[in-house]
């Protein structure tokens, strides 16, 4: 059985194709103004990679903030259910999943079969989302991909009290003016973000093991900071940004079987 999961995220659209539970292909594209066109393009690219014709897809499930705009999907599911499903399939021992994307952070507690037990979402404050690191990286004149490695080099932790991404930027500018090293500033950003995210996760209740998914899961500096705040190692997939699409594709397969 071949199914697809499409995650219409705030920053990127991710498509993942599964055959009998195994990944055949995946692709992503930046979310443009014309979402329908971007989604179609990303899907075509994944189909081509997989060597599968569109008609062979038995079920497409959409998730993500833009899921309503994916009109050709057969069904939809929320990010929370998709994340939970993907996480237990990747890490059967995981019971809590933390998803940090471009514009949202969420923590989900789940059952062994991937059903959601409880969740919390941060969508009011940019200091708990990927956009925060991106903005700070720009201020520091470094590439986003370099932020993680640079943060790991920091020798000390500088506290950052900013509650708001915009004022945090002023704080970063002050640190630059006072001659603080870049690696220490980016580490401070990661620590501040991990503070926000771990507080949200504690609200939901942390059950071991904990997985981190979403695009920010690529940032080694953030992983280290969050693991430190929670006092435990985190399970992070190789391609954390595809977790939502994977969960949607798995749910698509279950729905196709049931119908």
């Amino acid at each position, binding site marked *: 059985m071949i199914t697809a999961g499409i995650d219409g995220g705030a920053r990127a659209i991710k498509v993942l194709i599964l055959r009998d539970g195994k990944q055949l292909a995946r692709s992503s594209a930046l979310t443009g103004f014309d979402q329908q066109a971007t989604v179609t393009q990303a899907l075509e690219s994944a189909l081509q990679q997989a060597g599968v014709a569109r008609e062979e897809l038995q079920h497409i499930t959409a998730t993500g903030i833009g899921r309503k705009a994916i009109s050709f999907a057969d069904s939809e599911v929320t*990010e929370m259910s998709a994340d939970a499903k993907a996480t237990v399939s990747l890490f059967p021992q995981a019971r809590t999943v933390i998803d940090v994307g471009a514009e949202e952070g969420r923590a989900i507690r789940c059952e062994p079969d991937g059903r959601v037990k409880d969740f919390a979402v941060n969508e009011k404050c940019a200091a708990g989302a990927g956009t925060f690191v991106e903005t700070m990286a720009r201020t520091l004149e470094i590439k986003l991909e370099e932020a993680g490695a640079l943060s790991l080099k920091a020798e000390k932790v500088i506290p950052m009290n900013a509650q708001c991404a915009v004022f945090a930027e002023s704080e970063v500018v002050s640190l630059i003016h006072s001659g603080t090293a870049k690696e220490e500033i980016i580490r401070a950003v990661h620590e501040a973000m991990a503070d926000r995210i771990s507080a949200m996760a504690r609200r939901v209740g942390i059950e071991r093991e904990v997985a981190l998914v979403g695009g920010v899961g690529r940032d080694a500096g953030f992983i280290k900071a969050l693991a430190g705040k929670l006092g435990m190692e985190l399970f992070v997939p190789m391609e954390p940004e595809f977790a939502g699409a994977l969960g949607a594709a798995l749910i698509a397969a279950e729905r196709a079987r049931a119908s």
Partner: protein
Amino acid sequence: MFEPFRHWYEHRHEYAREWKSRTSGKVVGCFCTYEPEEILYAAELLPLRVYGSHQPSSVTEPHVFGMYCPWTRDVLAQGLLGKYTYLNGITISQSCLHFRQCFTSWQKHVPCEFSYYLPMPHGIQSPHGRKFFTEELKKFKQALEKWVGREITTGELHEGIEVMNENRRLLTQLYELRKAEDPPLTGQEALWVVASAQMTDKRDHNQALKELLPKLVDRKLDREPGVRLMLIGSENDDVEFMEMTETLGATFVVDENCVGTRYFWGEVDSERFEDPLEAIAARYLERPACPAKDWPELSRWPHIERLARDWRVQGAVLMQQKFCDPHELDMFTVKKRLEEMGIRTLFLEFDVTTPVGQFRTRVEAFLEMLRSEDLFAEELL
């Protein structure tokens, strides 16, 4: 079928102005549901609750702190923006700090003929509460008598009690219908009814309810009820949120907030006391309590528990007005106890405007959680 109630809800100011020109009567704005409306009816005055508008506004900034709850700021904004110029009087029955300051600011900046701060006791669980409040009600009655220029008779007090009690009985009957497996009305429709009860003359409202109730007996909605939800919180007149949630495969079957059951639950029992004012005092002290007054016991819990059980609630939305500390402090216990009953909860923080898109995803995820047994088997999402 719900058109009169919806019309009143959407055109509340037009109704009040029309009522004034029809009756030549005076209208009193009430800031809290602890207001003894019975006495106002007895004085031939029309008590109306002052509501917010869900429109962002900055006019309150010079007068109250930004960390006052959005509901109180929205209410004060209506006064400052001149939406309630038809009010002849205003009154508050001692409420939370935010509302008290909103009231005193209104007194200062939007003057009208009559204003009265009624010291309703916070110690509603104190054995001295009834005696205290009865005496305060006497003073309130005297102040009203001075304003309207005549005595309020015992007979009129009983009439005022009956108008209010009839409304409470009819609203309770309406809520009873929502216990059904397939309720004949949605939560949004119920909200139009209860909210408009505080925006109209109860005699008009009672008449409309008497016409509505028989029509509901055989009514079948053209939708499946879905998940049975309860709404718990301080104030709610957010019809947009109700509509959004109910289009996702759920129905609000009951509520515990001060537009709904906390407002109309429990009648004044005139048989219990010789003095009608004491009977009124007892009703307000014994009604399901607002958390601002509910200590040391959490006396509102048995009310919540009963509603959740009798209306067979599957999930509860905990609606928190941002910065409302009394409610937020109760939420932990309410959440824990509901979950011990097997009822899952969704906590949402509300501001003047509702972020419908963000809330939609959270409500959908909550409903997926509640339906998780079927989640992967059915395409109902």
